[in-house]
């Protein structure tokens, strides 16, 4: 991939949380690169620091050390993030669709509000655009007018994605987007993500579900205790893991995927 394709560079980023009595280093000197239109995955168990890293990449959390560049510009300057008008290009979808939508707003209003803020268009045009986005996410007009509580988990998550897309992002950070929804809703969402990738969006998928990572991403970073212990081509990492930790992680996947890894581990 040529150099101008590089969208985002994360260089030696560390994040420390200081609670007064104890200091926790959640992310330790992590580096990664996101190219345009590329799907990459970050896997790890709870507490490995993967969500913290995603939040840093979205500009929601200041790193304690290291640098993040978006299109060559430093993302963090002083206590502000994304100064050069690139703010909209990096959008995040959160883990919990129940918590990330305003319970008072129906899907349409939630997305239309985001469209208005990001593109500064009038109300009617914003609603029109919002309906288009929702439709693309498989939410028809009837469902778009429902309150979040009337929607299923999968539908809510798709509304969240539509809202994130309203800013026309080039990078979508998805933090465990499928962990709170059913298998069939998960398949639906992944299908939509594939479509977004075809349209040239880069997706950073943070998950502990290795099946989802394998299905969607081309490159994967395995995170443990704040450090990337292994990274590389997703297919290579899955077929020929080098680190013990990765092997163990793969062996714990239920079903077909883990079977091969378990057999290898026994040998």
């Amino acid at each position: 991939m040529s150099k101008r394709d590089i969208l985002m560079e994360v260089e030696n980023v560390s994040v420390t949380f200081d609670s007064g009595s104890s200091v926790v280093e959640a992310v330790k000197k992590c580096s990664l690169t996101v190219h345009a239109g590329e799907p990459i995955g970050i896997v790890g168990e709870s507490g490995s620091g993967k969500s913290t890293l995603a939040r840093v990449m979205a500009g929601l959390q200041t790193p304690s050390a290291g640098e993040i560049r978006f299109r060559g510009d430093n993302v963090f300057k002083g206590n502000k993030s994304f100064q050069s008008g690139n703010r909209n290009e990096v959008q995040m979808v959160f883990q919990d669709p129940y918590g990330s939508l305003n319970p008072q707003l129906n899907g349409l209003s939630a997305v239309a509000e985001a469209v208005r803020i990001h593109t500064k268009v009038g109300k009617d045009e914003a609603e029109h655009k919002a309906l288009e986005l929702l439709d693309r996410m498989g939410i028809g007009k009837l469902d778009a007018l429902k309150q979040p509580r009337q929607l299923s988990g999968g539908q809510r998550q798709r509304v969240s994605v539509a809202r994130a897309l309203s800013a026309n992002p080039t990078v979508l950070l998805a933090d465990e987007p499928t962990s709170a929804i059913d298998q069939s809703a998960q398949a639906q969402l992944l299908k939509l993500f594939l479509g977004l990738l075809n349209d040239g969006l880069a997706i950073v998928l943070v998950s502990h579900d290795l099946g989802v990572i394998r299905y969607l991403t081309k490159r994967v970073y395995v995170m443990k205790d704040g450090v990337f212990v292994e990274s590389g081509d997703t297919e290579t990492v899955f077929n020929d893991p080098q680190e013990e930790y990765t092997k163990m992680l793969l062996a714990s996947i239920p079903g077909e995927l883990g079977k091969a890894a378990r057999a290898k581990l026994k040998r």
Partner: protein
Amino acid sequence: MTSDVKLLDLSNVAIGIERRKRETLVLVREANFDVNYGEMVGIVGESGSGKTMVCRAIIGTLERRGASVIGGEVLFEGLDLRTINEAKWKTLRGKVIGYVPQSALAGPNPVLTIEKQLAEALSQVEGTGSMKNRSKELLDLVKIRRVDTVMKQYPYQLSGGMRQRVMIACALASKPKLLIADEPTTGLDVTVQSQIMELLREIRRDLGTAIILISHDLALVDEVCDKIVVMHAGATVEIGPTASMAKPRHPYTIALNSSRIDVAKPGGELLTIKGNPPSVGQWNPGCRFAERCDYKEQDCLVGDHPALSGKKGEHQSACLHTDKIGKI
């Protein structure tokens, strides 16, 4: 006990919520399955398919939610659970039938130490030896290390996996014949999930406990259970031995199977089930999966929901056109 009495036998169970001035809201109508002694049975289905409601019917806690069994039979060792009173329930619930609730993180009482928590469970059953030793034995049983430290700790000091182990330990206090685990690994890591599954398998092997595992993860159930029950919109649509279920016969199970991420080719086609499961109270006549089904014909849209065809105990499917599906 004769050999043909099942540990648990549900036939055509219907569960509903009675409402004032309006007709009863039916949540489950055709729940059918049985559990043999020492068997591990998996129940899968989308959210809202009635999996948890059926479990509540088995442990008799439906009434607390304003719901009740309104039809069919729930037989536990031949005893009709619909006919027994609360006093009798107290001898079954938590004693002969153990229950591990869904939310591991919220499960244990936050203001009790693990020792007190276990003591509470143990105080309900007779046993020999000091409470402390019996609690320790339970924690050993669920493979918790550093038992002495853990006994003095509060739930917030434990990880999700540990808390779930404590909940399983509590459920095992009375050496139940049947253990119901309702989505025991939701929200836990894959590594922890595989440990919990291993634990359930060992419990079944060493104690001979029959286990009902509820999950929406087909791959998971596939791996640990002897028998799989598939539910859709309050009905059992397919049931069969795990090996035989690899070749599903009901369109819903087929669709569920093809949306499995672990068998899909990376980036390849992932079949999704059309539409959403029908909402409770808005069930159409005929087969409730028809709206989403690729094989639907005119006769699917009328009459009652199709009954399970085939012999009980073997692979059964509730579809009018099972033959057609086999041939495609």
